[in-house]
């Protein structure tokens, strides 16, 4: 697998750290509330894509950007990152909280998003339905991982978790359903793959998934069998196979090829 290298870039709002690795067309990966984590699925996708994984300000102990205070601001930051680090529009893949940013990015900067992959994206969930229990780590892990032995073991992730979840609150103000974004979904131009685990409970398909599917014009919803919220860790091969086919072949990804067989 290609090595990922940590880099830093100066944007107009402040510095942004990011990981870069792989070879091929650019793929921007926007992280979840847990912060940037190099999942096995990303490593597999890096065989055919150059992956850019920015750390959003305030995550992993990085400084906040004073002028980036909400989700649309984060989307503007992601757009600035694409323009400066990648230089042109690219495919975007995002997990959970990152999906919220990616949705705003696709709404506000459609010219920069070619194809969009959203893994159980946040921001479309009715408050009180789904989510993660704040004070019950066992239940939290159950909702995140259908295959617990594949959960990431890097102690740095756990150490950063509390600070990262606090950073999320700073951008979302505790909201779970972004009404302005919901209204804007029909403006999304990018062909969109919505990916949910068959055991998803954090962002329930029956609630948020339906809003996304009916709101985004060119969207396709796929289930990853035997995965919970953290699909990239639960079933990396399945995610890489599906997302890889979607990114490489666009709407033709539904046609089976000899490689898939």
């Amino acid at each position, binding site marked *: 697998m290609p090595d990922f290298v940590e880099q830093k870039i100066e944007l107009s709002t402040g510095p942004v750290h990011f990981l870069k690795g792989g070879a091929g067309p650019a793929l921007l990966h926007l992280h979840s509330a847990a912060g940037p984590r190099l999942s096995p699925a990303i490593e597999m996708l890096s065989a055919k894509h150059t992956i850019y994984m920015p750390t959003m300000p305030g995550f992993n102990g990085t400084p906040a950007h004073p002028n980036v205070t909400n989700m649309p601001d984060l989307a503007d930051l992601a757009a600035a990152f694409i323009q400066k680090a990648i230089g042109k529009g690219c495919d975007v893949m995002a997990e959970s909280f990152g999906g919220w940013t990616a949705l705003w990015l696709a709404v506000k900067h459609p010219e920069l998003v070619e194809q969009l992959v959203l893994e159980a994206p946040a921001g479309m969930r009715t408050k009180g339905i789904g989510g993660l229990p704040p004070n019950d780590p066992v239940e939290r892990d159950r909702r995140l991982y259908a295959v617990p032995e594949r959960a990431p073991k890097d102690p740095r992730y756990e150490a950063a978790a509390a600070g990262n979840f606090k950073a999320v609150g700073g951008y979302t103000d505790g909201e779970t359903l972004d009404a302005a974004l919901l209204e804007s979904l029909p403006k999304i131009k990018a062909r969109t793959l919505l990916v949910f685990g068959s055991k998803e409970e954090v962002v329930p398909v029956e609630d948020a998934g339906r809003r996304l*599917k009916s709101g985004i014009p060119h969207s*396709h919803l*796929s*289930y990853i*069998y035997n995965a919970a919220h953290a699909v990239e860790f639960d*079933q990396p091969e*399945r995610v890489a196979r599906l997302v890889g086919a979607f990114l490489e072949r666009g709407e033709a*990804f*539904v046609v089976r090829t000899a490689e898939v067989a």
Partner: protein
Amino acid sequence: MKFSFFHLMPWTELTEPPEQWPASNKTFDAKRGKELYDTYIDTMVFAEECGFDWVGCNEHHFSPYGLMTNCNLIGSVLTQRTQKIGLAMLGNLIPLLNPIRVAEEYAMIDVMSGGRLIAGLIRGVPHEYIAYNVVPGESRERLREAVALIIKCWTEPEPFGWEGEFYQYPSVSIWPKPMQRPHPQILMSASNEESAEFAGQHRAMMGMTLIADLKVAQRCIEIYKQSARGHGLEPTPDHILLGYNTCIADTDEEARHHLAEGQRYFHKFLMHSIRDAQRLVVQQSRFFAQEQYGERFVSRLATLNERSIDDMIEAGSVLCGSPKTVLKQIKRIKGELGNGWFNMNMKIGNIPDAVVRRSMELFRDEVLPEAAGL
């Protein structure tokens, strides 16, 4: 108490036991086959007149044991020839099949029948895995994934994709969808402890056949109940279906005679080659996750073969006798196992079809009036 009439559609014309598995089809006579299908379908339609709540059929391959290689074809005929009886497909052998096709065909039966389908999602007996060349050790996990996919096919309001271990379908949207919402009643086998646990996990109805021992059956039912409770279903007797070879005649002696003859043909001719294949699969694969269940399966088949009719009645393995006797047997089994359903197979081996009809009439006239209220 509710009752289902079940048919295996056996081939009745063998004069020599098949030497090995699969049974040679060189003696199959299509003209006789047509007569049998006509008779068997008429018999199944008659079950509605006799007050049965369901009529059931199933799937078997490469064997004179049953001529129903796809029970959905028979189910389709029954949608047009019956009006209100439940159509129990018991069922499609899911790990051998394309789950999307199963979801589609079951949805067709449900819509064509006006919502009368009972959807059996069955793993099947071991030898079927040789017939369709599917790895027996994958059967449980294939079933688990396929069931999840089939339910999605029935319940998703929009097209969806599926990326699984055994099944990958990038874009699914079945037409028709079932009439019953959110989906038809699902029934799964619980004939051993593994299956019972599995059926409970899926909050399905449980079905059990070839009961050799009431205590073992009781244990499976208990495991099913515990598993179902752990997964949000409080099971009632209506969730428990027990399959019984059944012969009701005007006298006990007559019933014993017919059942003994039918069982003799069944074991000597229909089961002969199957037993070898079952044994091979059980020995050579992980069809059963725990070895002891495989051993029990093989010994259960042997036990049922060796027992006399009297022994089987005593063990609670068959329903046999005059209407009065069968009523007593039904009460005893219900008392011990707490089931709300009996699934009665009356065409055992080569029992004459006129005897089967008489058995059904006696059920209608003398058993059901009292048994329905149990």
